[in-house]
């Protein structure tokens, strides 16, 4: 069991002051093995905070990030899965799942983690799975008027990944889960 936190688009301090307190109390150090961050943190304080949760931190660049040295995209292997990260402002049309699928093919990964739209998505297509953890702070987004703070926790176990999405709705944290299984050639959803 490997826990991977997928989180991003906090947009601190431009659009939001801080993570919601209920999220902060859930995210404790030592429980998570990897953090994947889609970008738009935007400041060093957030980077340092993530580092305290887990030293294995992977970040890609969002268009408002203070640190311009984050890469445009990144790939890594966790267990049996190849994961790719890309903020998504580079992929036009924004939020378009087919265009994102192309990026997934290009990076040759099973799971593509992306952001920018502040909308949670977990979408399975022929080539793999696209996950958008949404905005962890519920920051302003031009895509939707209704942004609930959210983040994703992936539990990677062999050929199976369970995606838990945590959403703060009306002050309460709601959890949902989706199962994905990888076959020899491609993942399929349950």
């Amino acid at each position: 069991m490997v826990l991977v936190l997928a989180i991003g688009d906090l947009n601190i301090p431009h659009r939001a002051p801080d993570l919601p307190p209920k999220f902060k109390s859930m995210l404790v150090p030592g429980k998570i093995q990897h953090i994947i961050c889609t970008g738009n943190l935007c400041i060093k304080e957030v980077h340092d905070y993530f580092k305290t949760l887990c030293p294995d931190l992977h970040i890609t660049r969002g268009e408002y990030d203070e640190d311009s040295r984050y890469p445009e995209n990144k790939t890594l292997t966790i267990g049996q899965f190849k994961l790719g990260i890309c903020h998504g402002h580079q992929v036009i049309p924004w939020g378009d799942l087919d265009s994102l699928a192309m990026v997934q093919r290009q990076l040759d990964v099973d799971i593509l983690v992306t952001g920018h739209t502040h909308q949670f998505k977990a979408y399975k297509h022929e080539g793999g799975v696209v996950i958008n953890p949404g905005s962890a702070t519920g920051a302003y987004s031009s895509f939707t008027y209704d942004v609930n703070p959210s983040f994703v926790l992936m539990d990677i176990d062999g050929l199976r990944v369970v995606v838990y999405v945590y959403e703060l709705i009306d002050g309460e944290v709601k959890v949902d889960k989706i199962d994905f299984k990888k076959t020899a050639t491609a993942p399929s959803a349950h």
Partner: protein
Amino acid sequence: MLNGTEDEEKWLAEGIAGIQHNAFYMHRALDSNNLREALKYSAQMLSELRTSKLSPHKYYELYMRAFDELKRLELFFKDDSKHGVSVVDLYELVQHAGNILPRLYLLCTVGSIYIKSKEAPAKEVLKDLVEMCRGVQHPIRGLFLRSYLAQISRDKLPDIGSEYEGDADTVMDAVDFVLQNFTEMNKLWVRMQHQGPGGVREKREKERSELQDLVGKNLHVLSQIEGVDLEMYKETVLPRVLEQVVNCKDDLAQYYLMDCIIQVFPDEYHLQTLETLLGACPQLQPTVDVKTVLSRLMDRLSNYAASSADVLPEFLQVEAFSKLSNAIGKVIEAQLDMPAVGAITLYVSLLTFTLRVHPDRLDHVDQVLGACVKKLSNIPKLEDSRAMKQVVALLSAPLEKYNDIVTALTLSNYPRVMDHLDIGTNKLMAMVIIQSIMKNNSCISTADKVEVLFKLIKGLIKDIDGADVDELEEEDFKEEQNSVARLIHMLYNDEPEEMLKIICIVRKHTMVGGPKRLPFTVSSLVFSALRLLRQLQGQEGDIVGEEASMTPNKIFQLLTQIIESLSAVPSPELALRLYLQCAEAANGCDIEHVAYEFFTQAFLLYEEEIADSKAQVTAIHLIIGTLQRMNVFGVENRDTLTHKATGYSARLLKKADQCRAVYACSHLFWVDDQDGIKDGERVLLCLKRALRIANAAQQMANVARGSGGPVSLFVEILNKYIYFFEKGNKQITSSAIQGLIELINTEMQSDSTNPDSVADAFLASTLRYIQFQKQKGGVMGEKFESIKL
């Protein structure tokens, strides 16, 4: 010095030897019931205590030896069957001892038995003893003697309910006795300060402090006397103790005894005698640390208040706060050279007190702050860092107590205190305030509170005269400004009118921040305003047209002005992003000309200000991405902007970037909505253009490096062909796709010396996708069927 201690050790050893020697003989006398001999040897033994050579610490050791022996003697005295002398006669007999000190020790010992025998009223014996002890005026010897008297008389005081109470003996007598012993002991103790060689003052004070508990013990005894109720404490005990405390005019004694009174007597009593107790404070020596005394008193009373809610009305009834407040004022006035840190520490204690006892009385809090302001105004420039720390403590206390900055913002004196801080401390305090807001997730929701808040944190918002911004470390400066940026999101009201006011106030304050601060604060302000716009949109249905002050256009004007200020920094990349956000917002409000204007500004910045190639790539993608989502534009405007976008895309520096930007532009001509543009031809034109660029890139790579270039570009373009093919763009044919696939294969094979595994995998998965679509069956399957692999 070493010699001194060595000598003392020697004398102590000699003294102890002397005691032991005489005790030996005394025991023999006791065993043989020989009173005469017992008296003789006990007197000799006690003579060892006549020494002046020992320090209090060592004298105590000697005293304890003697004390143990006296206990045995007392047992012997008590049993008149052993020596046959009545206690009355014994009392007279011991007075024949040669030297006064042994005489008095023996007298006290017998006196103890005398009282026990009840042959005379306790009061008379006690009075006799306490007066007789006057015969010893040497401080150390006298103190120990009287301590002995206190010790043995302790359980024989005519207290209420004690066996020694009677018609002739009352509690008052007991109290009188203890008070007199206390008074005499204090006098002796004070005299120590002035006697002896003009040695080191520190040494003397150390010796005195070793003896302080002997004096203090009397107060303990008083507190333990049952008959000393509030009435007696108020009328007799406290006044007389305080009289001695004040009159002795000794700072060591005064400090110790004031503190002792506070610690030893019940808090209930202190509340009821507050005026008297406090009245003594200004009369104390100026060198006495009266602020600590008062602080400890307030601490005790605070704890008392916290112990039970029943107690609180008492506090109100005795007007504790105002009495303490007045007392502190008097002390500060009286001690003109009290340093600032002392006065402020007192105010901190008083504030803590009122926050504990009367948390709802904000007027008290404001009053304390006001008194502090007054004190600070009299100081030309406060430079003491400890005093500064105390002021910070003073200002932080209400924040911590109320957990709600809004409460602190209502205190009229709060900003006035802050004004007296030096710039560095002012900023520190401003950060404390912001952190308190963030920690408590507080929301400040009215314009006037926001105004007060921003005045409080003005040290962070702009350069204050005399401050050197460069002095601050960059890290710290960033932290400061990011805190202000975060703070802006804590200011919110769901009434649009009020929210606009808040935004205007924040803008007013932050716009003068200067080029270093603007990049931090402008973004927060812009997004705040964008949120307000949404609020307004949400309410649109209800507004009855009278709200001319608040229209989306007004807010867009405000936004423009705010973003324009970034040109002073200059921050073109940020400004471009913000203009594009505004364009999307204008799109959402369906205001075409405003959206167009924002795009114009964005393009102008791109053309004139953004020169870095990497920045250009991101910027052009942001422009394309935003434009792709616009549905408010009419054909003309859309065309102009699209043309610009594609033009700039093709003119990026690197071929690969050009290619990608151009094929991104293809999406400008195809929007998947119901009414979206679907210009298949122009899509294809874009893709073909991208292909040409990719080809050129290939050729350049061949020439420059003699090897293949980015095959990946072709695969990307292929994917775009497939995308539009799938969406139903008639201009894109399956043969075109096939041709492209062949082209890619050719390129890859021709460059077998330099295999590009990434591009290989990409092509493979693309082909897999085509296969997958074929196998889907239905409409999609048919479509893809035409692509031959």
